[in-house]
């Protein structure tokens, strides 16, 4: 039972991270290979504050997310102006840079050996609440002028600009929001696993999240969440070794790209279910 709890908790944390990736990739069409780095920032900052200054969890969590958002600002400002291919490279570089900084600052962060003895403050209920909370925030974002304008600029940047949409600002705002949420996922992870290591947040993690979003359907938040749920928990439950799990992910993606490029869910959202019934009443 404990094992299932732990899987669910970790899956929930991954889902929050994937939400960030969904926003950056699904909403604004940028391929970020450094999302996991924001998770690292959130986790490390909050953990170090708690360990060194005995900050209570809520404050540390806030600080961690804020730090991640700041990092997002640092990366985002130059990035949003770049072409698509470059964005991947820059975010990749940033991610690796963060990892190497964490590795090389043994005094502060424990370096490659990791940060230990983080107090346990997070458990399944908090994670579940967080998942639901963040999901609501992201869904509302998608349903607002922000979401619409993002989808517009993702579809056709030139036309979007012609409609008065401030493309760069929107990309940045979305990026900041995403990095804050991803940072929060890092906080949850730090105070759950009680141990952090730079190597946990490298670009392959970011790539996995991209793959998850892609499989679920780059256009569908619901798809991304379901995909995260399944692709995260199943391998753990079935106890796949890490390399095989990734191979299976890759094969799934290749199949989907070739035969169902819109992802399993296309652009279907679960909200369609209740929108349809509302429409029926109105007419």
């Amino acid at each position: 039972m404990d094992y299932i709890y732990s899987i669910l908790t970790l899956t929930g944390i991954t889902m929050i991270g994937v939400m960030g990736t969904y926003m950056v990739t699904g909403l604004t069409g940028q391929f970020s290979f450094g999302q996991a780095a924001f998770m690292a920032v959130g986790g490390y900052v909050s953990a170090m504050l708690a360990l060194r200054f005995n900050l209570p969890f809520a404050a540390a969590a806030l600080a961690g997310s804020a730090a991640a958002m700041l990092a997002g600002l640092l990366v985002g400002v130059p990035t949003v102006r770049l072409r698509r291919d470059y964005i991947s490279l820059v975010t990749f570089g940033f991610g690796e840079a963060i990892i190497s900084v964490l590795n090389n600052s043994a005094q502060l962060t424990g370096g490659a050996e990791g940060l230990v003895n983080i107090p346990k403050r997070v458990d399944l209920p908090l994670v579940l609440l967080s998942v639901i909370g963040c999901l609501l925030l992201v869904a509302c974002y998608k349903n607002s002028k922000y979401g619409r304008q993002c989808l517009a600029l993702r579809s056709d940047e030139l036309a979007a600009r012609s409609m008065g949409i401030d493309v760069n600002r929107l990309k940045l705002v979305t990026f900041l929001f995403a990095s804050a949420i991803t940072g929060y996922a890092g906080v949850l992870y730090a105070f759950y696993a009680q141990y952090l290591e730079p190597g946990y947040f490298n670009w392959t993690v970011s790539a996995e999240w991209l793959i998850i979003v892609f499989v679920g359907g780059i256009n569908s938040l619901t798809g991304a969440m379901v995909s995260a749920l399944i692709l995260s928990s199943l391998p753990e439950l079935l106890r796949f070794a890490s390399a095989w799990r990734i191979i299976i992910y890759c094969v799934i993606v290749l199949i989907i790209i070739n035969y169902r490029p819109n992802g399993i869910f296309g652009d279907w959202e679960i909200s369609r279910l209740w929108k349809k019934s509302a429409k029926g009443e109105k007419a």
Partner: protein
Amino acid sequence: MLQNIFFGLSLGAVYSLIAVGFALVFNILKFSNFSHGGVMSFTAYAGYYAYIRLFDGRVSSSWMFFAVVTTAAVIGALTAVAIERVGFRRLRRNQAPVIYYFISSITLGILLENIITIFASSNFYSYPVFFSSDNLSLLGTTFSVADVVTLLVSSASLAGLLLVLYRSKLGLAVRTVSFDVNTASLMGIDADRVVMATFAMSGALGGISGVFLGMNYSLYPQLGQLVVKGFIASVIGGLGSITGAVIGALLLGIVEVALIGVVGSGWMPACVFVIMLVFLLVRPRGISGVIVQEKA
């Protein structure tokens, strides 16, 4: 100083193989082919395997080197063609937007990396030493034989490629297709075959560079991540341009060697990253690249 420049050049030469392999595909299909890294590590391992199989661990010599390089080039070409078939052919048929090629290529790269991990474990292997540790003395400085050979073979491969691109019918077809796939087909060019040929060339270069990387860095599954160097070189030189890729790569090699001397190998990647970022913001076209502006 001269030695450093030379060393940087030979490193840059390897990078240029990667960068050109990268640029070839970019020219044709307009996306950054990250599976190139997978091809590189795959062929590096394949070369190693071939060496073990063919020569039974006998003491190595220079002609074995050429055998391994050739094998790697061939395997690289085949792998790349297979990748094109699996990952990109359907996308071309369906006229899919660029994003999908991109994801497909990354996925294939990761796939290859993990296949290697499974079959060869994550241990590091050391590549056989093909050359004596002799040094040549020239102009008052010493150059290692290995570096000289690297430089020579890379240059030869590149020269060979440029010959094909600019002096052969196939090369003409490749350059045509890189302008516009559809028009080229209307002119009677079999786009499929040309794309396949391009991938083959790209893969061959990838194979050769894989061997060199194996020699320089020893063999491990993540070797393919060095494709990022190729990407950086292409970016500096200009994403659409073959000559730009070469120039960018040579520069990168020299800069890297210089930086290692100044800040040490720990901080070097971070510095390169910052330099590249500055470059992107100041001159996104690169040195000789052409960025096509979108028409409304």
